[in-house]
């Protein structure tokens, strides 16, 4: 295995600690929230959990020292525009803390993305155009509402498929039950 460093996403939690794990040739930078500090000393299984969490949140290494972008935490003056921006931000996925929308995440990159969205809305762009702009850069991954295509077809048709298989199994079973009753009786 080749030596590999992870990148800095922006940190997910203020005051995150840095932990350097060296196992074999692999080097990973892992962050964990301050509340996990004492737990880590308790046992290795918690360490496993930290490794797991590091998979959920891109590892970060340090806090940048800039204040958030103007529109990261400030609403637009026009309530109608803010409502449009808010709806779009809830649909966009944070690149750093990947289980959250950019509306929910405090990661600096999410703040910068909110600034980007609000600035574009204020400049008169439509939410659909902004989404298209972001999808062109990050792929459908960045949206919580991906379009119907080859990759998502199984999600849409999966339940119908399972229902059909279940129906087919149940039908076969009922029929066999009837024919067995018939032969016995």
């Amino acid at each position, binding site marked *: 295995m*080749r*030596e*590999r*460093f*992870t*990148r*800095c*996403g*922006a940190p997910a939690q203020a005051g995150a600690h*840095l932990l350097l794990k060296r196992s074999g040739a692999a080097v990973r*930078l892992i962050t964990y929230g301050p509340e996990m500090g004492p737990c880590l000393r308790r046992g290795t299984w918690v360490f496993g959990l930290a*490794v*797991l969490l*590091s*998979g*959920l949140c*891109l590892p970060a*290494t*340090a*806090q*940048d*020292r*800039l204040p958030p*972008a103007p529109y990261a935490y400030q609403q637009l003056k026009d309530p109608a525009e803010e409502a449009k921006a808010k709806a779009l931000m809830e649909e966009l996925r944070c*690149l*750093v803390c*990947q289980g959250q929308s950019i509306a929910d995440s405090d990661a*600096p*990159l999410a703040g*910068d*993305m909110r*600034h*980007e969205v609000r600035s574009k809305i204020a400049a008169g762009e439509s939410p659909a155009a902004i989404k298209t702009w*972001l*999808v*062109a*850069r*990050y*792929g459908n*991954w*960045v949206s919580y509402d991906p379009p119907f295509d080859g990759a998502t077809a199984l999600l849409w048709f999966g339940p119908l498929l399972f229902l059909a298989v279940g129906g087919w199994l149940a039908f076969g079973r009922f029929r066999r039950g009837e024919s067995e009753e018939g032969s016995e009786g």
Partner: protein
Amino acid sequence: MKNRWVLFVPLAIMGLLFGAFIYRLTVPAETLIRSQWIDKPMPLFDLPPATAGVEGLKSSQLADGRPRLVNVFASWCIPCRAEAPQLEALKAAGVPIDGIAIRDRPDDVAAFLNEVGNPFDRIGSDMQSSVQIALGSSGVPETFLIDGKGIIREQIQGVILADQVPGIVAKLEAMK
């Protein structure tokens, strides 16, 4: 009953599911998000200098006929320090490198360059990550290979390792 083995199918499915879960628990998923903005022109930008004594970076400067690297970095990013020797090696091999500093302060950039060296021809300051977002970049460090016409040809996510240096030089050479 004839097909007795059919009774074991649910157990086998459970076993497969369990195996999949245990595999994912021991080998966490790769969570890199690759930029889709590849084989596309550099987005338009005009970034101010990241610190005193360096030149800022304009997208129009990236189409001067010479293939180059654009390195997205930050002084607060520890892996970026680990990448510095490789960038120096690329510079020594004649590769032009421009930098984009993400969410950085001029003093911090100056201290960073002082500490790890400055392989950059120009360094633009991207205070609100807007160019980073326009590039489809999701973290630091990231490096983009740009051809002589200013078209982005490849994205490298994470630290450039020493064994990747010759390959990058060859790729840029091939773009000439």
